[in-house]
């Protein structure tokens, strides 16, 4: 049975169209110990700050649109458990539209640029593609990446270097392993700054979908060293 608890949430407020700079507003919230951060935010919107701008949709960790930073760590608001003290901020390093909502235009531009649809050498012939069942499983695991950008936000290399981010590397690897794709995904990855990865596995730890972009990068690097598949030739 969940118990009643009192929480304090400090939320970063910022409206670029009117505010000179961001400020933090603190809210006392009465809730239960099995609440998620999203429940706290919604409670604040419903009872205390009707002008709070925040984003969510599915509330069960599938759409990935509710990602925020809680106590300095990027998480999905709908998944992360509430805490007695929470500092809630919009996901860095993206431009802030208002309060906790960020502008994803550049993210979508990167997705478009990387061209994650299988680049076929021959037309799709209809019928099931010949894919090994275990490979299909692995492709599906990579296919369940939410594009939530939690890994990109947490990545120290994205912060410091010219690196698109772990999520994009994972999707490149997804395509590289897809039998129907003939693009030179390794080259694309290197162009996107794959070599800047520190191998710190923070992305693996933070991923809400239990994926490992760092492993995808390691697989690419291994291909780079030892010569990977020749699908793209």
């Amino acid at each position: 049975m969940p118990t009643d608890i009192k929480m304090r949430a400090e939320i970063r407020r910022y409206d670029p169209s009117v505010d000179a700079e961001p400020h933090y507003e603190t809210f006392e919230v009465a809730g239960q110990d099995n609440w998620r951060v999203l429940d706290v935010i919604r409670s604040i919107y419903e009872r205390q700050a009707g002008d709070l701008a925040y984003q969510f949709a599915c509330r069960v960790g599938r759409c990935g649109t509710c990602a925020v930073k809680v106590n300095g760590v990027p998480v999905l608001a709908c998944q992360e458990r509430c805490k007695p003290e929470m500092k809630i901020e919009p996901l860095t390093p993206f431009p802030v539209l208002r309060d906790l909502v960020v502008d994803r235009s550049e993210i979508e531009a990167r997705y478009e640029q990387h061209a994650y649809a299988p680049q076929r050498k021959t037309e799709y012939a209809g019928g099931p593609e010949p894919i090994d069942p275990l490979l299909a499983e692995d492709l599906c695991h990579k296919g369940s990446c939410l594009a939530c950008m939690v890994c990109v936000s947490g990545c120290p290399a994205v912060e410091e270097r010219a690196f698109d981010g772990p999520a994009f590397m994972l999707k490149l690897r997804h395509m590289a392993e897809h039998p129907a794709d003939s693009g030179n995904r390794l080259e694309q990855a290197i162009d996107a700054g794959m070599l800047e990865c520190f191998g710190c596995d923070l992305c693996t730890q933070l991923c809400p979908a239990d994926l490992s972009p760092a492993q995808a990068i390691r697989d690419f690097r291994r291909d780079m060293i030892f010569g990977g598949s020749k699908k793209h030739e």
Partner: protein
Amino acid sequence: MTAKTEVFTEHVDVLIAGSGAAGMRAAIAAHDAGAKVVLLAKGPRRANHTRMSGGRYNAVSGFNPADSTDAFFRDTVDSGVGINNYPLTRILADEAMDRAYDLESYGLAWDRTEIKKYYMSMTGGGTFVRTLGSIDEGIGITEVMLHQLHKRGIRICDFHMLADVVQDDSGRVTGGLALDLSKGAWRYFSAGAVVIATGGTSQLYETSSGPAINTGDGIAIALRAGAELVDIEFMQFIPISFVYPPSARGYTLIEPAHYGMRHFDPKAEPAHLLNTKGERFVLKHDPVRREGSTRDILARAIMLEILEGRGTPEGGVLMHPDPQVFDAFLKERPIYIKRLLENYGEGHARLQEPIQVTPSALYTLGGVRIDPWCRCNVPGLLVSGEAAGGVHGANRLGGSSMPDIQVFGRRAGIAAAEDAREYAGGGAAQLDKARARAAALEACMQRNDGVRPPDIKKRIQKLMWDHVGLVRSGAKLTETLAAFRSLREHVLPTVKVTNKSRVLNREWMEFLELENLLDIGEAMAASSLQRPETRGAHYRTDFPALDSNWTANLIVRRHAGQLQVEKKAVVTLEKAVPAREKIAGAIA
């Protein structure tokens, strides 16, 4: 006196509202047919119902020699208790597999047992094993489709909520008025054709499984434009969903069939559902299929147990899964196991402990009445996906929504491109209409005193859950209609927002949603009142039996501000395969 509302305009061939699979598939088809397409997403483009789906896909792949498109058709009509739009259902059965191959061509890897043989499972209510799936579920489907849109350079406008369609004096739709929520700016897209793929109305209910944005916008917009709705009284409730935490409450746990060996074999045992007295109460309602019954019967059975006081304190019943299924379940649906682990605990995730479940509003069975090419009675307006009605009748088979949105999404796109080619354009007169509508929707921004939208939304949701949900009665439906009228006349005009910021003003968005929720809520209540029987998802305590005189559809339309409900014969095929007569529930 406020300044004239500024509305930015542009012209497109096909305007699509909705970023789920139906909208995206329409975009792909319309683009490939040569149309200039713009797709509007109410929030970030990945926020849609398809995303949340388990991605189960019913289709006749040929891998089960016992199955056929006739059998799939028959199963769907049986499940729909005979009021399906037979031609639409036939199309679903016939075209589902081709669309599954389309997804494969986009990069989706259906689960396999061999390199070219798909893995199939059962669905609650179907006769043969035919359901395909992929481990990445709705996430995988939406991602591969998004990349197809990127590949074609189709423009997607995030945070663009379709507020209304604009029509010329003959009633022909000339474009769509959208609110760019990220800026608070109005945009009028004049278009040769508008496709509504905005999903369903799950947010009308207190406990629901859908995303927060599914407030039935598109269906309401169509209704206001003069479109006919069909079967709008039919709302599918998923029998089992999470009870806690609050954010996960209502999120589907699919069906008890999947938590037992019945997942593989239609004759095997599903998971058992027990009330607080330890009784398998479903046996009262469907002694033959037991917990492997269809969603309508199961959801009603559970709801009645809870209402009659035999549910848990949190408002649920207990599902006893079969741990033998765990390995397969973990392999097929790891995301579900993860949620069970995170929301309930390890024992529950391993299917070793009883799982607390409750029904939840899932799927809008009715919707805008369409023809086989997704056109409705309003020229220039097409509707596909959950927003359209007729494909599934009175109850939908699990796994049939995924093929529905692909099949009819594509058809809507093809037809929209065709309609756009033939249409010359609306002209400048429509911009004034758009401006006027935009001005009206700014009303709440000007008020300083009043009620906040979230409060009204909750009232509507509670009324719908209590009286227009799983358990309905004539008296309560009439009461609800009166309550809605009162809300519309007395409360809606007093809505205000806390902050006048135009950027991402959630209360403003909810204000726009309120009118849609009321429109659909009224239509659902009125239509439910007019159906004096129990069939599929529609259950009346005052008319608990199936009435064969009511093997018919109710058509709802708005005329001069009034709702008109009309009974019409079911649309059958010439050589229709007759539906097996089924009695819905042993109570009858």
